[in-house]
């Protein structure tokens, strides 16, 4: 029973981080229709930038805020340089540009930071687990979860109450109507990428605190794909629920299936689940169903 509750809490907490990254993915898709396969590398960049600031002596919270700023700049640059010219191109072209982008970023990260695993020194969070009744949670997970939830709420408020957030919602809903009302679509696309960089960056920084930073953090970033498919590609609540469900799925399978299928069952289960899920409900839990006509 303890194993069950351990998996439950860890799953929810890691899922919170996935939800944060998935939110960035869904935003890009909603606003500009770009299916982004470079999300793993965006999390990596966030992790390494935070790490670099932290190594330079900046306190962790400040390092995260600086990472957010770097994320805004990088997001705008990426959109202007790579994605801007591809609006309206076939889906394969757009996806492959993000793949090219992911190769470029991965190469750049490898060149700048090398392939050794980096660990936050001194450790940001206390290693000693906190006891809550029968549950014992390591503080890394708890703080990561809290930070992820805070950021999710901040982003939600941004969309609900600010001018830019409303403009982004309008563009996602109906681009032509938004353009006719004076919303700059180019600005919205850039802003979507900036937010994606920001959310992935913080997600990466938090994931990096759990296991150290190396290329495999980028693989964790890829787990947003099962998450967004589960929730529906264009649903923000879907991304959050999907992220948490994937976190749960991963930890439960790690706890209960590992004895039957030794090895990396934890890494594979989200993708197996996604492949089967697509067969039955390709539009996810809350995605829009498209009816195709000739």
């Amino acid at each position, binding site marked *: 029973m303890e194993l069950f509750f351990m998996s439950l809490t860890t799953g929810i907490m890691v899922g919170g981080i996935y939800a944060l990254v998935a939110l960035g993915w869904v935003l890009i898709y909603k606003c500009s229709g770009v299916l982004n396969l470079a999300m793993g590398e965006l999390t990596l960049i966030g992790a390494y930038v935070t790490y670099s600031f932290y190594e330079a002596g900046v306190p962790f919270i400040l390092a995260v805020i600086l990472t957010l700023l770097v994320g805004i700049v990088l997001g705008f640059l990426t959109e202007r340089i790579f994605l801007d010219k591809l609006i309206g191109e076939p889906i*394969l072209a757009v996806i492959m540009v993000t*793949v090219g982008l992911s190769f470029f970023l991965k190469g750049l990260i490898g060149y700048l930071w090398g392939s050794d695993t980096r660990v936050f020194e001194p450790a940001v969070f206390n290693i000693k687990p906190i006891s809550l009744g029968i549950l014992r949670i390591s503080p890394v997970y708890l703080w990561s979860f809290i930070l992820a939830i805070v950021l999710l709420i901040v982003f939600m408020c941004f969309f609900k109450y600010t001018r830019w957030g409303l403009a982004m919602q309008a563009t996602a809903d109906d681009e032509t109507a938004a353009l006719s009302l004076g919303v700059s679509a180019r600005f919205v696309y850039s802003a979507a990428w900036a937010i994606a960089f920001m959310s992935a960056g913080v997600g990466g920084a938090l994931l990096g605190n759990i296991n150290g930073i190396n290329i495999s953090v980028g693989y964790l970033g890829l787990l947003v794909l099962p998450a967004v498919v589960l929730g529906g590609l264009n649903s923000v609540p879907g991304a959050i629920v999907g992220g948490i469900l994937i976190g749960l799925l991963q930890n439960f399978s790690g706890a209960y299936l590992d004895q039957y299928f030794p090895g990396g069952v934890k*890494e594979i289960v989200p*993708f197996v689940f996604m492949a089967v899920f697509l067969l039955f409900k390709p539009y996810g839990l809350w995605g829009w169903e498209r009816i195709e006509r000739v």
Partner: protein
Amino acid sequence: MSSVWLPCGDYHQNYHEDQGWWQSKFIKGKMILLLLVVFVGIPLLFDEYWMSVATMVGYTAMGALGVQLLIGYAGLLTLGHAAFIAVGAYTSTMLILQFPWPQFMLDSGLAYPVSIVAAGIVAGLWSVLFGLPSVKVKGFYLILTTMAAQFITVDFILTQYVSQIGGRGQAFSLPPGTIKIGPWVIDTELSVYLVMVVLLSLMVIVLANLLRSKPGRAWVAIRDNDIAAEALGINIVWYKLLAFFVAGFMAGVAGAFWVCNTAALSPEHFQWFLSLWLVGVILIGGVGSIQGAIFGSIFMVVVMEVLQMAVIPLADYYPSLLMDFAYVKDMAFGLAICGFLIYEPNGLAYRWWQAKNYFNLWPFSY
């Protein structure tokens, strides 16, 4: 086939000629010349190093042809092709190492050729298994299921289970002399190159003929509009799965060929990187043309070799550059894909087509 403008005064008089394999004597001569260059010229002119580069080009092209069939002709987006190459490579190796071959087959060198065919069939069926979702989904969702194929096959099944067979740990190695075709042992650069050329030529011939017959027309119809194709009476489930089978078969053969090139095998050779690389190759070469897959392979492999050569002199000043070459390669590949998609979306094959038409009509263009 009529996509090439014929020279002035040269025209087809019936459908048969229009669909002909060799449209004119000139084209026939050109193709025979090409085969001569590939089979005789390159082995005579190239040294061992460039021969190995040519072999890499061929291996990439074999993989890229399957991707070209799926993406360029049948419109089924795939990002997991390396999985099927891996299945082929492992099938071939396991057959050679573990299967109790009768002695006469070993003596007459039939084991490896039989394992190539078996590798193709197993990889084809494996590919059909992961192609099943294509019945219901397409586009981005299909990319996700093929990605799942990649991670499930290579990172899980092959790494965790198949690699452990025989207690060798991660990598399989084939003892020298086990790979032989008939009386010839495949161990020199030249023999590997010749195996590659034969297999690649066969693949191109089979694929080109499939594309100008009923399955090919059905695939193109499905690519252009699958709902309209279904309304025209094309069994889209059957043809989509057929496309997956043929592409998987080619990937399996490519994988079996990879075994004779390296004589060692590890899941490291078939990471997700390879799948993305193959899609990048056809994007650079040109989507929807067989030449495109080959041009793209030549371009990517040769550019990477040239890049490596350019880096070596610089390494005296920046020693880190040589150590981190893998990263430079990643960056160059990423930029090449982005650059081609943004500035040259039709790929190299389109430029080739333009040049060919220019000379066909020269000196009097219409």
